[in-house]
C-alpha cells in the first residue's frame, strides 16, 4: 500500500493568474523520500499544504495510507490526518523548551511515556543535552533538528517538509541535509520534501517530482530526471543546459556546429533543440572556426568558456584548467558527447540513440 496517493488534485486561488495546482496525480510508496522541486510559485508548497490539510482542494482526492482524507465530499482536518510537518521558518513554539516543543505532539501519551519518547528522539537528532533550552537559545541548525524531532515524535505516517533548509546559511545547509537524510533513512520514514534548489532535490529525494506553473512535468529517480528529462523545462531547470537548434536528417541532427549522429525517426527537416551541457561540447582554436570565445570563467578545478556562434547562439564549454585560451580567440566548436543527448521537439523529449563513431 502506498503511504500517499494524490489523484487529479486541483487548487485555484481566487485572483491567481493560473491554477496553483493543476490536475496533479502522484503516489508515494512506504519508506520513500519524494522531493517536490520547481521554481517559486510552481505549486509545490501548495501541494504539500493540501496533503497536510492546511488548504482545501477544489477538486481531486488525497489518500494517506489508503484512507481518503480529502475528496469532493470529505475533508479531514489537519489534526486528524496523522502527518508531521517541518515548516520553512521551523515554527518552533517560542514559549516552550526544546523538550516542550517535542512533547507538544504527544499529548495523548501518558506523562512518563511521553518523556521517554522525547528523550529518545532528542538523542536521535543529537540534542539530548539541549532539551531544556528555549528556541531563541538554540542555533539555526539546532532549531532545525528540534523541528524535525517534533514532527517525527508522534510517529506520523507521512512527514512533510516545506523548504526546511532555506533559512540556514550555505555551509550549514549542506551539513543539515546529510544529517536529516540520515535520520529519515534510519527511521525508515516516508517523507515529502519541498525545495526550489535542484541540487538539494537530487541529494534528498529517492524520487523527484518537477513542477512548473501548477503542472507536474516529470516524476522519476534523480538520474532519470537529470539525464532523461522528458520536457525542455525539466532539462533547463535541472541542469545548466544550452539549447542548440537543429533539424532532423537521415544521419541524425544537423546543427550549426556539425551533424550529431543520433537519428530521431522524425520527418526530415523537423526543427528540434539539443540540450547541451558544458561537458558535451568542446572547441579548438581555429582562425577559420564557427565561433568566438566571449569570456573565460574560472571555476577552480576547471575553466568554463562562453562561446558565441556565428548565428549568435551561446554555448558553454568546460575545459581542464591546464589549457588557457584567451577571450576574443576564434575557435571551432563541436559536439563531443559519448552518450545520447536529450533532444526536444515543441518542448517535449524525442527519443533517439547516439550511433558510435
Amino acid at each position, binding site marked *: 500500500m502506498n503511504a500517499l496517493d494524490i489523484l487529479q488534485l486541483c487548487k485555484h*486561488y*481566487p*485572483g*491567481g493568474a493560473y491554477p496553483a495546482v493543476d490536475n496533479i496525480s502522484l503516489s508515494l510508496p512506504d519508506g520513500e523520500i519524494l522531493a517536490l522541486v520547481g521554481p517559486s510559485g510552481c505549486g509545490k508548497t*501548495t501541494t504539500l*499544504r493540501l496533503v*497536510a*490539510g*492546511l*488548504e*482545501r482542494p477544489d477538486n481531486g482526492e488525497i489518500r494517506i495510507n489508503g484512507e481518503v482524507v480529502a475528496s469532493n465530499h470529505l475533508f479531514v*482536518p*489537519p*489534526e486528524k*490526518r496523522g*502527518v*508531521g*510537518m517541518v*515548516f*520553512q*521558518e521551523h*515554527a518552533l*513554539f*517560542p*514559549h516552550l523548551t526544546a523538550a516542550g516543543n517535542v512533547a*507538544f*505532539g504527544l*499529548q*495523548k501519551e501518558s506523562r512518563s511515556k511521553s518523556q521517554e519518547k522525547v528523550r529518545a528522539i532528542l538523542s536521535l537528532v543529537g540534542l539530548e543535552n539541549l532539551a531544556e533550552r528555549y528556541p531563541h537559545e538554540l542555533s539555526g541548525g539546532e532549531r532545525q533538528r528540534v523541528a524535525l524531532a*517534533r*514532527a517525527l515524535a*508522534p510517529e506520523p505516517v507521512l512527514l*512533510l517538509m516545506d523548504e526546511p533548509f532555506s533559512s540556514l546559511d550555505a555551509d550549514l545547509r549542506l551539513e543539515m541535509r546529510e544529517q536529516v537524510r540520515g535520520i529519515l533513512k534510519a527511521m525508515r520514514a516516508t517523507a515529502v520534501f519541498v525545495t526550489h534548489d535542484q541540487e538539494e532535490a537530487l541529494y534528498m529525494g529517492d524520487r523527484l517530482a518537477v513542477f512548473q506553473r501548477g503542472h507536474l512535468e516529470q516524476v522519476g529517480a534523480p538520474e532519470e530526471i537529470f539525464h532523461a528529462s522528458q520536457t525542455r523545462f525539466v532539462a533547463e531547470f535541472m541542469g545548466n543546459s544550452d539549447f542548440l537548434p537543429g533539424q532532423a536528417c537521415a544521419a541524425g541532427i544537423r546543427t550549426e556546429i556539425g551533424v550529431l549522429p543520433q537519428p530521431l525517426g522524425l520527418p526530415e527537416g523537423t526543427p528540434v533543440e539539443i540540450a547541451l551541457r558544458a561537458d558535451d561540447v568542446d572547441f579548438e582554436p581555429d582562425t577559420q572556426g564557427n565561433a568566438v570565445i566571449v569570456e573565460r570563467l574560472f571555476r577552480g578545478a576547471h575553466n568554463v568558456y562562453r562561446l558565441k556562434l556565428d548565428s549568435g547562439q551561446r554555448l558553454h564549454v568546460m575545459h581542464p584548467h591546464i589549457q588557457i585560451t584567451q577571450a576574443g580567440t576564434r575557435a571551432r566548436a563541436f559536439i563531443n558527447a559519448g552518450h545520447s543527448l536529450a533532444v526536444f521537439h515543441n518542448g517535449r523529449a524525442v527519443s533517439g540513440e547516439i550511433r558510435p563513431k
Partner: protein
Amino acid sequence: MGRPCNNESMQIFTSQRPRTAISPRLLAAAGLVALFVAIPFGYIIIRATTGGMEVWVRLLVSDRLRDLLLNTLILMTVVTTGALLTGVGMAWLTERTDLPGRNIFRWLLALPLVIPAYIGAIVHLALLRSRGGMIPQALASIFGEAVPTPSPLGLWGAAFILTLFTYPYVYLLSGAAFRNMHASMEEAARSFGRNSWQTFWQVTLPALRPGLAAGALLVALDTLAEYGTVALLRYETFSSAIFAQLYGRFDRSSAAVLSGVLVALAVLILWAEIRVHGRARFTQMDSGWRPAALLPLGKWKWAAFLLVLGVSSASLLVPVSVLTFWSVSALLDPQALAAVFRSGSQGFGNFAWNSLWSSSLAALLAVALSIPVALLAVRYPGHLSRFISRFCQVGYALPGVVIALSLTALGSQYLPFMYGTPLMVIMAYVLRHMPQAVRASQAALERLSPTLEEAARTLGRSSLQTLFQVTIPLVLPGLLAGGALVFLTSLKELPATLLLRPAGFDTLAVRVWVWADEGFYAQAAPAALLLVLVSAIPLSFLLRREQIFNERS
C-alpha cells in the same frame, strides 16, 4: 478600500498565502461582536433621522445647531493645532537635540496621559479663576491691588487645558518616528546639498506625517467627546449640550438629533484616522538603525529647557503638586477627612473599589471580544473581514454622552434586568473603548507567524485548542497592552458613568467631579490623586512597550 491586500496592516510574513475559506465559526463570532457594536450606533442614527421634523426645525431656526457646530469645530481646530505644535516640538527637543535632562523629560512629557483633562481643568481653575483663584490672590497680596490675569474660562481656557492633556498622543507618535528614522536618510539629504532647515522640511517632516496625522485625529476625536472640561470651563460644545439635555431636561428627541450630528462629525474624522492609522506605523526598526546625531542647541539650550519645563509643569508637575497639597491638607483637617472617608453610606474604599472592578471587567470583556475580530482581520484578510474590523472601531466616534443616551433608551426598553445596574456602565466602557483593544490585538496577531498555528494543527490540536494553547499565550503581552489601555481610559471616563450609573454607584471619577463641582477641592483631591496613581500603573506598562522608552543596544 478597493485594494485586495490588507495594506492597512503591516505585512511581516510575506510568505502568507492567500486564503480561500473563512472559518464559519470565527466569522460568526466576529459578526456577533460587530452586531453588539452596531446596535447603539444604529439606534442614534435612526433616532436622529426619524426623531421628528419639528426638533430639527426648532434647532435650525434658533441657530442652536449652527452655534454648537461652530463652537465645537473651533475648539477642535484650536486644540488639534496646539497639540500638534506642542507634541512635535517636545518630541523634536527630547529626541533630536542636546536638551538638558532629556531622559527625564521623555517620561514627564508622556505622563499627562494619566490625568483626566477635567482634573487638570479643576486644578487650573482653582489656580487662575479671577475671583478667589490662588494666583490672582497671591499677586494681589504682593502688589496690594488686583493684577489682571488670563481667565481660564471660555474657548481659550478650554483649548489651553485640552491641549495640555492631549498633546502626549502626538508626542508619543512623533517621538517614535523621530527615533526610528534612519540617520542615513537625513545624511543623504545633507549630502545632496540641503541645509538642516531644508532637510527638516523636505525629509524629516514628510517621514513623520503619517504619525502626526494619526495623532492629530485622535486628539480631534478626544476633543469632540470631552465633557468635563468644557462643562467646567463654561464653553458649550455638542457633548456638553447633549449632557445638559439628558441630565436636566430629559429631552431625548433633541439630544438624539444633536448626537446624530456629533456622531456624523466623529465618523468623518474616524474614517480619516483609520485611513492613515496603518501607515502611521511604518517606523519599523530594522538592522541598519543607528541614532541620528543630536543637534547642539548652543545658546538656545536654556531657553528650550525652560520651554519644556513650562509644558511639563503645566501638564503634570503643577496638577500633581496641587492635588498632593490639597490631599495633605484634607488629611490634616478632621472635618474634611471624615467627609472623604464617609459620605453617606459610601466610603472612599467603595469608590476606589467600584472604579477598579468596573474598569477591569470592561478591559477583560473588551479584549475577549476583540480576539475574534482581530483574528478574522489578520488571518483572513479580505473585504468582509476588513469591514468588520473597521466597524468595530466605531466606538471611537461615539462620545460618552452619546453611548449613554442610546444605552439608557435601549436598556430601559429591552434589558430591564440590566438597566439600573453597574453592568450598563461597564457595557458603555466596552463599547467606547473596544477600538483600542481591537487595534492592540490586531497588532499583536500580525506579529505572530501563522505557521505556529499550522504547526499546532499538524501536531494534533483542533483550531480551538490551538487558539488557547498557542495563539493566546504567544500574543498575551499584546492583549494585555490593549487591556491596559481600555482599563486606563475606562477609569477616566466621566460622562457615561455619570449618566448611566445606578444610584449609589460612585467611582473615583464621579466623586472627584461631584465634589469639585460643589467647590470642595480639598475633599476631591485624595480621590483625584488616587485616580492618577492607579492610572500610572497601566500607563507605565504601556510606555515601556513604546520604542522611545526602550534603550536599544
